[in-house]
């Protein structure tokens, strides 16, 4: 048996430590990893816990991220609770195996500490890796601070492993801004956290030798389509209700409330910024400053990126006159992904809101409050004019001449 780890009610943890403790409390059977900045401390701390007797399980140092996720897939198919962590280029190397994990319906929890993807080589936080994973069939949950990183890991295990779901989940936090910034984190006792997640219940596990099963079979044009449809169906119909249920249970347990779509100052908002990660809290602060000036500014934070809560987002934004989609990933040839998502969500709703796109914060460039003020000023002008007064896509916080498109 693993030893109990005595925690204070409030610990000072960075996002990585918060994730490590959540993994420890989940009593993961196998962690296979190839550590990469800025997610390294998650598995480093975890290995430390294991060496000191706080974890009953296996820790596998793989030869690459591709190998690490492949180990996770094998361990999960064998019937264990499995988790790992990665970032950036490592995530990119994992990408092929991510599709295997979701297609094989293996409930692996992957902590992605978001980091830019080179070239130029860069270790700091942006959302390039998170965006790269968005078609991979995984659940993607986004965290804004270390407390979220702790809570969302617990939620991820609980939802992912549910037999109605059986889909892997990524828990995203911003590299360095969340992962290396120590904040107060309210904790659960080990047994309470474990009970919240629940006992791991295997399904079609390979180690059930009385019922042998082949995993990862091949299908061609005959059945591939049906398998993918079934997987998409589970992601689309079963996941959000189960996440809501987990959020409700977490609220009953801790008082902390999470929502499928996080909204702040949105009830009567005329103008809204929609963003992800640590940007959400900065935008909230700016919206408060604007509210003090009588400007009806709100913020929408994406909590669940996949499955994308299309209807819930449209509902939150339905009264707005101008909306900005903030994308922290270079769209390389089109509008930002979040702009596309919001346009898709709003297009058939009869809204007359003006929607514009801002690319910001690449490679860890700070999103300043003055940038956000400037975006809100654009939005106010758009709202008053009833049409875009700027280009549809602008770069904000960029040095050199103003860059914009469309």
């Amino acid at each position: 048996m693993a030893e109990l780890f005595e925690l204070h009610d409030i610990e000072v943890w960075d996002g990585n430590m918060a994730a490590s403790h959540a993994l420890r409390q989940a009593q993961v059977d196998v962690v296979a990893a190839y550590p990469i900045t800025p997610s390294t401390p998650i598995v480093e701390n975890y290995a430390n816990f294991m060496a000191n007797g706080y974890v009953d399980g296996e820790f596998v140092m793989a030869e690459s991220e591709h190998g690490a996720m492949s180990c996770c897939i094998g361990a999960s198919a064998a019937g264990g609770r499995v988790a790992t962590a990665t970032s950036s280029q490592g995530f990119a190397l994992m990408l092929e195996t991510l599709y295997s994990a979701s297609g094989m319906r293996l409930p692996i929890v992957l902590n992605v500490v978001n980091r830019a993807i080179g070239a130029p080589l860069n270790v700091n936080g942006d959302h390039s890796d998170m965006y790269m994973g968005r078609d991979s069939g995984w659940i993607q949950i986004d965290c804004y601070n270390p407390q979220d990183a702790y809570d969302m890991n617990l939620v991820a295990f609980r939802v992912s492993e549910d037999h109605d779901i059986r889909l892997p989940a990524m828990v995203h936090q911003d590299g360095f801004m969340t992962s290396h910034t120590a904040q107060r984190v309210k904790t659960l006792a080990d047994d309470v956290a474990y009970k919240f997640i629940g006992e791991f219940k295997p399904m079609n596990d390979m180690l059930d030798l009385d019922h042998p099963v082949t995993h990862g079979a091949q299908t061609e044009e005959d059945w591939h389509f049906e398998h993918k449809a079934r997987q998409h169906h589970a992601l689309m119909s079963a996941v959000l209700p189960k996440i809501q249920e987990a959020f409700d249970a977490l609220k009953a347990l801790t008082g902390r409330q999470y929502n499928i779509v996080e909204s702040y100052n949105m009830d009567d908002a005329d103008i809204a910024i929609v963003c992800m990660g640590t940007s959400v809290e900065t935008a909230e602060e700016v919206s408060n400053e604007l509210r003090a000036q009588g400007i009806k500014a709100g913020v929408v934070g994406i909590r669940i990126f996949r499955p994308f809560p299309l209807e819930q987002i449209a509902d939150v934004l339905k009264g707005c006159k101008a909306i900005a989609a903030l994308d922290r990933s270079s769209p390389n040839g089109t509008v930002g992904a979040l702009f596309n998502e919001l346009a898709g969500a709003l297009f058939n709703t009869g809204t007359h809101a003006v929607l514009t796109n801002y690319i910001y914060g690449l490679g860890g460039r700070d999103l300043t409050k003055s940038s956000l003020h400037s975006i809100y000023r654009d939005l106010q002008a758009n709202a008053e004019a009833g049409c875009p007064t700027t280009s549809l896509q602008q770069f904000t916080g960029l040095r050199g001449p103003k860059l914009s498109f469309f």
Partner: protein
Amino acid sequence: MVENGWDTFEIGTILRPFEGPASDVANILPEDRSYTKSNSFSVSVADWRIEKPLFNKEHCIDCQFCWIYCPDMSIISRDKKMIGIDYDHCKGCGICVEVCPTTPKSLLMFPEQKDEEAALSEWPKKEKKEAKEN
């Protein structure tokens, strides 16, 4: 299978090799096992083969090399006696012939359409040792 749609089969890319539990399957002969339709045992791959191995009992010493080396478990052996070849699963790789230690070999490759009796009649003869004159 035809009536199956996306919502009818088990999730994940899994196949079950046996109908029901398979706890004692190691002690049951292949022909008596409850293989499912999706088990590769239920599918013939005979048409992958261009050449087939034929077995000549006359020279076989039951060493079991062919049984051990066959990558498709297509050598049928009972009580450590070589019985024949499973032509539904043999892909004609020729490894059994390669590892056969007898002279002449007890297994030889022939064109797929070759008549077995004709093949046996053409089998190389055992060389008789002639006393060497000093």
